[in-house]
């Protein structure tokens, strides 16, 4: 059972409080009518299933009811970070150790408290 840091509540809470909602960063096409059937089908049905770092959408269903994102390793189940809607992940398949910091924040300190 996961131990999840809600970026809105600022606390680690048990998985029972959350619902997983699938892959994160799926954007609905701005003009659905302009999409081909294939493009619309991709948006509706096709999802990544990586071995390794994966970005997921979760909701703090019986907490603050906010949606947020989790970067999780699908092999170790380690949660590398949680971040609010609209923010970008620091840990990605290209940067498994964390992207170089733009704003002087040490990636390691961000991981503290949300580590598996």
């Amino acid at each position, binding site marked *: *059972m996961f131990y999840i840091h809600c970026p809105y509540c600022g606390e680690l809470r048990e*998985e029972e409080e959350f619902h997983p909602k699938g892959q994160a960063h799926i954007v609905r096409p701005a003009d659905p009518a302009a999409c081909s059937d294939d493009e619309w089908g991709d948006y509706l049905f096709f999802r990544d299933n990586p071995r390794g770092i994966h970005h997921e959408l979760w909701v703090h269903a019986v907490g603050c009811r906010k*949606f947020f994102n989790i970067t999780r390793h699908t092999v*170790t189940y*380690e949660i590398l970070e949680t971040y609010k809607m609209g923010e970008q992940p620091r840990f990605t398949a290209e940067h498994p150790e964390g992207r170089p910091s733009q704003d002087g924040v040490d990636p390691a300190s961000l991981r503290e408290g949300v580590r598996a």
Partner: protein
Amino acid sequence: MSQLNRLARGGRIDRSRKLSFTFNGKRYQGHAGDTLASALLANGVDIVNRSFKYSRPRGIVAAGAEEPNAVVQLGKTEAGQVPNVRATQQALFDGLEARSTNGWPNVQRDMMSLVGKLGGKFMPPGFYYKTFMAPASMWMTYEKYIRKSAGLGRSPMESDPDIYDHLHQHCDVLVVGAGPAGLAAALAAARSGARVILVDEQEEMGGSLLDTRELLDDKPADQWVAEALKELAGLDNVTLLPRTTANGYHDHHFVTLHERRTEHLAETAPLKDGRRQVRSRMHRVRAGRVVLATGAHERPLVYANNDVPGNLLAGAVSTYVRRYGVVPGKRLVLSTSNDHAYRAALDWLESGHEVVAIADARANPDGELVEQARARGIRILPGSAVIEAKGENRVSGARVAKVDLDGFRVAGAAETLDCDTIASSGGYSPVIHLASHTGGRPTWRDDIFGFVPTLVKGVSAAGGAQGIYATGEVLADGVEAGRQAATEAGFSAASVSLPEVAVRRDGAAVGLFQVPHEKPTLRAPKQFVDLQNDVTAAGIEVATREGFESIEHVKRYTAMGFGTDQGKLGNINGMAIAARLLGRSIPEVGTTVFRPNYTPVTFGAIVGRHCRELFDPERYTAMHQWHVEHGAEFEDVGQWKRPWYFPRKVNGKTETMHEAVARECLAVREAVGILDASTLGKIDIQGPDAREFLGRVYTNKWAKLAPGRVRYGLMCKDDGMVFDDGTTSCLGENHFLMTTTSGGAATVLEWLELWHQTEWPELDVYFTSVTDHWATMTVTGPEARKLMAELTDIDLDKDAFKFMDWREGSVAGVPARVFRISFTGELAYEINVQANYALHVWEKLFAHGEKYGLTPYGTETMHVLRAEKGFIIAGQDTDGSVTPEDLGMQWAVGYDKPFSWIGQRALTRPDTARTDRKQLVGLKPRDAKVVLEEGAQIVFDPNHAIPMPMVGHVTSSYYSPTLDSGFALAVVKGGQQKMGETVYLPMADGQVHEAEIVSPIFLDPKGERQNV
């Protein structure tokens, strides 16, 4: 009964306290401090079970959790039955009753051993399926008897009187296992100030230190154990949990601990101060750091007839002698691949019994223990092993021979030694089960002939669990692991001074798993790998010959590592045998995955208090008590308890559901009825963009809905499929009240939040669940207006307060919102009041309604009435593959709305545009008395050869008292174009029903009754 194998002195039992118990109906005596297993051995009970498949007699092999044979059924009373208890882990108490789980009619004289003999020289994997399959029709008969004589235990048939608790805990450092490594780790972590939980599955903490020959600071090791435990017990930051098994290691250091609080005292929890004690606790621990100090299991050697009672693990022999004062025989032969096992021979000898010989697989055994054994005059046979045990119900001899390990063959003539006990040791397997639960694949180490765990961050293994076996090194490793865990958890390291342990010089061990026999494996007497599942070396050979090369396939084909045992003794031997047969190394073959739970956990412990009325929360409406008092039968709708129907007593007889529903339906159609509709989901939506938002999530238009008006809407997912429906009322320009299905309220609210928070955060809109705040009662029927007029100040004129309007006013003196929505097709008023006034309003309605025939109705009548009108229930008449067009509800779709609402794009996909999709229709059975079965499949041609093309199914079906006929809603391929055609419903009993496709609206198609 005398305890013929009990020593006069020694062990950790209390000889002054005699406990009597029965096993298979026979009475025996043991002592306080015994396990059921040690007491059985003390009484000379050789056969404790019959084996699973071959029904061979089996005895006790081990002294701990790894025992595969002595799996017993516990319980004197029916309610106290507990299956699958390992006798080695069950403390003896006075009055304990246990019996074998296998063996019919009994373990001594077993029917099934005949089957084993009939089965020929060996029963290969798949034996039962291959042998008893012909003729196929007889399998059921065979199976009944095979099951009767196989199987492991049975569950109680009466309900459990005991109480079980769940505890949720946090700690900085969780230490699993209280042997030398665990105690040292706990001391180091505890002294640093960290919150520590120390768990151990045995009756006493101390692990191997409770039966070791070694001295700590020149004193018996148990003295150091006592001192360590005294210190830990005195610290506020330490929780000691004896008799507690860490059974599952789940994600992110979530560990489940099963604490047995009374199972060593009595069959069911004894009373304390007049109250029943808690039988067991499930601790759900979220640990900061975890130290696995779970030790190692000794591996038995795989030789012929190694399952005959009297074959034990070498370490178990030492444990029984030193800890329980029991010598399980008179004359011992030891077969070993390592030095450590020699202690079994020394302990045996010191207890005053004879050690016939030690067969050591190594050519030149020369360690310290070997020298000690030699010095005591024990005969040592180097380069040899026990290749076969003799005897049927008890070992009567051991055939020993020189073995060539590299060539896997017997290298000389066998000598038969006269003995009644064979102890064997093939080395030690670190107990890696918990580490394996976390997903880490273990690593094989050739130097220790064992797998060591691969660990995730935050967990460490100490001592035997990672292949460190010398007591002094184990203690030091434990201290280091405890210190490191505490440091990582943010505490500063504390010093722990370790006791002096003499360093013992051990000779190198050899890798020995299966012992060669003169005959090839397939023709030699059975060499057991997994005793619990009767998997033999020959079985593994057959599996590999039949092409099962992956160890996971070998496991499933042979059943190795299944059952309550989970491969504790057998797995490594099995992998080693498969590796040799496949010409691969053990790491190449790999291991199977151990899964939770480590040992079986009772359902009571898993369930805790979450049973009966506390199994799931129950939701009641404000009028619930009234319903109870008026005899309602209830139906579960999600967590809600809804009145199903209200049976009346007529001439002293209670109405059937059919009678009650018919009466309730006619009351609504002819007079007036009332429904408690409070469970409908209600979502308050506010904000300047509320209207825009509704337009995007509903299929129809919301731009022009004026305050005071109500509109029905369908909600789709972006794949175009309907998932909920309901009405939404405009309360103000920026204020709406949405209703959802009773079961869909939480889902719909989360759905709205999802789209708002992730896709359209720029929309200024807020959602609040108000389901529980407002109680809803539907007053419906031709007399509804007259009744309402007596209680409300709202103008009820049919032009002032039209169908699909809502008005604010007072009802029965209470502020109310009244909606003219109809789910029955009749004139209807849905009265919403603050929930805590609802009962008052409800009772007032009845006070005034009696003269109009006001009749309460439940969900069943609601269903009949709505189905007569063709109103769907989302989730019953739809199933996630139904579009608004399939429902014939194009009128509720805004094709030309400016924003591409959720689901719109998908409606033009080729698949959703097909004309032969399953479409909602009505079905009129040709025989009016027939009520079609919901879910029944529909065909066009009942004479078509099987398999018949199935073209749809019945979604809702009832008897209508108004139509005096059965009727149904259904989905049928292309059904909307097939009005008047006949379809057929073949049933399982051979009947074929006929029905006509009709409009789904059976009553008042123009809606005149609701518009009055």
